[in-house]
Structure formats: C-alpha cells, structure tokens
C-alpha cells in the first residue's frame, strides 16, 4: 500500500510469503472466525444488489414512468370526464387512473428481480457465488429477501408518486379525485407497492429457472402485458376465466376503487398473484437446488 504506483496495469507481485504466520493452527481462525450463516449470505446479496448498476436504473425508470403516466392519464381522463355518460361517470375510477403506470413498472420490477439471478449466469459469477455459499436454498432465499427489502419500499414510493401526481392532475382538470386519507387510496398505494414487490419476486423465480436475461424479459412481457391485452379477445369462458384469474390481472385489481363484479376483489386478486408467485418460487427453489451450476 505504501509504494505509489500510477500505472493502472498492476506490476507483477512476487509471491511473497504471506505476511501472517498461519500453518500450525487451524485455518478457519485466520480470516475471521466462525461458521457462515444465513445472515452472512443476506449481507452478501445486499452488497450485490446495491452494486448492480441496473438496480438504480430500473428504480428510476419505474418511478419516472409511473409518475409521468399518472400525470398524462390524469389530465386526459380529467378532460374527458365531463363528456362521459352518467353511467360511465359512475364507473370512473380516479384511483386506477392515477396508478395505471404499474403496468410498465411491474415489468421494470420483474426485470430487477430477474437480473438478480440472470446477471449471475450472464457474467458467470454464479460460480464464485456458489463456492462462497454452497447452500443453494440459502442463496436464493437471501436473494428473495433482499429483493423484497428493496422492491417493497420502492414500490410503495412508485405508487405514492403516481397517486399524488395523478390526483393532482385530476383535480386540476376538475374531475373527481381522492385524498391519501381515503381508505381506498391507502389500499391502492400500499397494495400497489406490494404488487410491485410480488412482480419482482415473479421475475426472480423466472430468472432462476430460465437463467437468461433476454428470455426472462420476454416471458415477463408475455405474462404481464400480452396476456392482459389479449384476454378480452379470447373466446367466451376462457376469456372470462383469464380476465378473472390470470395472476397479474387479478393482482392488478388492488389498484381499483370501483368494484367490477366480473373480476376478483382487490385483496382476493392480490392473493391469487401472491399464490402464483409462491408456487413459482417453490419451483425455482427445486430447480436451483437440483441443477448443476
């Protein structure tokens, strides 16, 4: 450390006999002592997620989109409100109008979750990761916890941002709007955050099974946007079933304030999404444990 070296390419260092005496005592006490625990693995995953570049971009992107869409959606829906029929006015949902940005934000969160696994396969760091922590369940479990610790608060902030900006622009356009103190608003904002955290876990599970970033993103788009867009076009009973039970669609009900009898309620819908994510994570655990790294 003491000799200054300005050239970026390191000069060869002679294999100096390492500074400390070590043979003769057990090796485990020479570099810190003790057994590696789940807590250590959690710490490792925390270091990784906060030093992964994409984490910041994904968060900023989701936030910008949610807020931007809420502003646009709020002002245009607000402008059209006066021209709606009384029936449509009764069905007007200011909460959903402000939180529609979740459609894009969920992809961003899913991507973040996916990258937590796929970046390891892309850069092949899965090898050092698993030589450091060979317990696969511990690795995936810590990844999931750390991901939730990031995605849940950020998800709530994203929802809150969309809500505040959306309601402000609805109010500016003279349409009905909500205050954060309304029960339904709090449910939408917090539930929306929970939904986004679930989307991140959804991505994590996909990433663990698929291992490729591109394929994971494609699957996310398919599951979260394409199915959503085409559900109404599906024939009869199938279309109704998909619109009601397809997990991302069902989970999305958490941001609605006006009940539609044809779809699940907000909490029941979020429950379906959570169940689906739990099932996918279970598959991911099994696959991750069984497969060669």
């Amino acid at each position, binding site marked *: 450390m003491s000799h200054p070296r*300005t050239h970026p*390419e390191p000069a060869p260092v*002679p294999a100096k*006999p390492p500074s400390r005496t070590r043979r003769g005592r057990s*090796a485990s006490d020479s570099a*810190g002592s003790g057994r590696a625990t789940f807590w250590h693995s959690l710490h490792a995953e925390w270091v990784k997620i906060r030093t992964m570049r994409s984490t910041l971009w994904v968060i900023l992107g989701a936030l910008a989109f949610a807020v931007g869409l809420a502003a646009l959606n709020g002002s245009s829906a607000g402008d059209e409100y006066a021209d709606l029929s009384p029936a449509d006015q009764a069905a007007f949902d200011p909460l959903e109008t402000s939180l529609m940005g979740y459609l894009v934000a969920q992809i961003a969160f899913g991507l973040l979750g996916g990258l937590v696994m796929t970046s390891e396969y892309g850069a092949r760091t899965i*090898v050092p990761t698993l030589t450091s922590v060979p317990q696969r369940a511990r690795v995936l479990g810590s990844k999931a916890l750390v991901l939730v610790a990031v995605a849940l608060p950020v998800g709530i902030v994203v929802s809150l941002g969309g809500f505040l900006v959306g309601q402000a622009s609805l109010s500016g356009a003279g349409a009905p709007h909500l205050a954060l103190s309304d029960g339904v608003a709090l449910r939408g904002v917090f539930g929306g955050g929970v939904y986004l955290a679930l989307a991140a876990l959804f991505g994590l599970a996909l990433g663990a099974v698929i291992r490729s970033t591109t394929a994971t993103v494609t699957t996310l788009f398919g599951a979260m946007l394409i199915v959503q867009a085409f559900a109404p076009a599906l024939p009869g009973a199938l279309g109704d079933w998909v619109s009601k039970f397809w997990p991302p669609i069902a989970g999305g009900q958490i941001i609605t304030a006006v009940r539609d009898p044809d779809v699940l309620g907000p909490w029941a819908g979020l429950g379906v999404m959570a169940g689906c994510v739990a099932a996918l994570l279970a598959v991911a655990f099994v696959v991750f444990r*069984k497969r060669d790294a």
Partner: protein
Amino acid sequence: MIEVRGLTKRYGDVLAVDDLTFGVRAGEVTGFLGPNGAGKSTTLRMVLGLDAASSGTATVRGRPYSAQPAPLKAVGALLDPGAVLPSRTAFHHLLALAAGNGIPRGRVSQVLAEVGLEKVARRRAGTFSLGMRQRLGIAAALLGDPPVLVFDEPLNGLDPEGIVWIRSLMRGMAAEGRVVLMSSHLMSEMELTADHLIVVGRGKLIADTTMKDFIEAHSEREVLVRTPQAETLRPLLAGAAGVRAEGNDTLVVTGLEAAAIGALAAAVEVELHELSPRQVSLERAFMDLTRDAVEYQAEKETNR
C-alpha cells in the same frame, strides 16, 4: 486434503468423469493434467459442489464442500477468471464473496494488495485485462486464507510475467503447507510447477505419481558423446547400450549413464569433447501416455 473416491459424472451416454479415485496432499503442488475434454474441470466442479456427481464422493478435509462451515476458509478456488459482473468494482466483487462467509471487510483490501490490485480496487471489473481478472480471481481464492487451493487452468492466456507470478505464488502456498491443486492441459506448465502429477484422459485416471517418478519412468535419458574417435568408441558401447551416430563425431547413447561412458572411454584412452546427458521432453512423454485418451485426435499424426 482433497479425497476423490469413485467419482463419476455421466451426461446421458457420455461418461465425462469415469470412476476417478485420487488424493491430494498438503505441502506440494499437485498438477491435474489431461488433454482438453479429459474431465478435469468437471471433476473440480464436483469437488466444489457446483455439479452433482452421478456417483462417488469428493471431500475436502473429510467433508463434502457443501458441508464446510465456512467454505472460503476451507477452500480457495479459481475456476473462471472472467466471472465478474462488468459494472461491479473489484472491491465490491470481493466484498460480496467475503460477506457470504463472514470474512471481515479489511481482508478484502488485504488480498487486493496481495495480488497487486490495490490501485484499481475501485475500478469496474469490466475494464480489467485478462491478467488483472486472473489476479482478481486469485484474490477471491485467497480471501478466506484457506488451507486448500484449487486452480483450474490458472496459466491459460497469461503473459509470461503473469505465469511466473502465479507459478511462484502456488509454490509459495505449497511451501507453507497448503494443498495446491492446479489443472492444466500442458505438460510444459506442469514441469516447472508441480511436485505431484495426476494424469487423466477421457475421464479416467491414467497416472498418479510424483513428478520425479514420472520423469524417470517416461523420459528416456540419452547421453550425447562427442569424440574424434567415434569409430573406436562405438563398438565398445554397443555391447552395453543403444548407440546411434549423429554426424561423424557424435554418438547418442541410451541405457548407460554418463559416468559409465566416461569410464569406458578413459579405459581405452579415447578423447572426449563432450559428454552430456539430455532428456526427451516430458510433453512427448505426456502425449504418448494420453494418446489413446485424446478425445478428438487429429486424423493423421504428423510426427512419429
């Protein structure tokens, strides 16, 4: 100590590793040698718990890798020097690995200094040259100050400086009493580094021997004799050894030590200008040994 017992890895019909049994001792550098596709990397991956064995066991100090209380403090491994997230700094790459085993932060700076990367610790690893990545990989292996080190093809693609560095590092680690296992597909790399050799071909064990025995068993030693009286000396030697002439005044003798040849020449008062033992290259010996085991052999051998 690394103990491998009946280790087998099967991919469908292909046996990548076929009933391998060997042990690796402390205090010496053990070379794990075999042609490409011989199953070296697969074996090391099974030792490190990355791939599951189809059958057999691999243990380090009596336990499977996954049962080590703190794996990095038991085994340091360099498998793939490119395995770094390009946007992550060298420091954070190591910090995450260290954290997973409860190794203190200070140790990260310490190993970075030990491999000569302290000046670039905060640089993104994506900007590193191959040699620097290799150093980073070595730093990762040293994090836990482990008594066992496993290096898969550590010299691949390195410049001569890097090769000398890693070689002396491995020798130094062995001299401290550690287990050092290093794989390579080049005998020339082993010759200067390893004390013990484990040779595999097509997943099977071909040889498990000290380097010294290997050299003695597999290299025919020849003695070059240069003398103006070659014609006088030749018939005398031919009785006890193989002799062939190389030019007018040079004989190549096999099967007789230099001292014996010198004594014989002195006895008949033959003047010697040169009397030098020389060795057939080990690369040649290695190729002969694994000839049948090379997975994709050139259709026609061009020499010999």
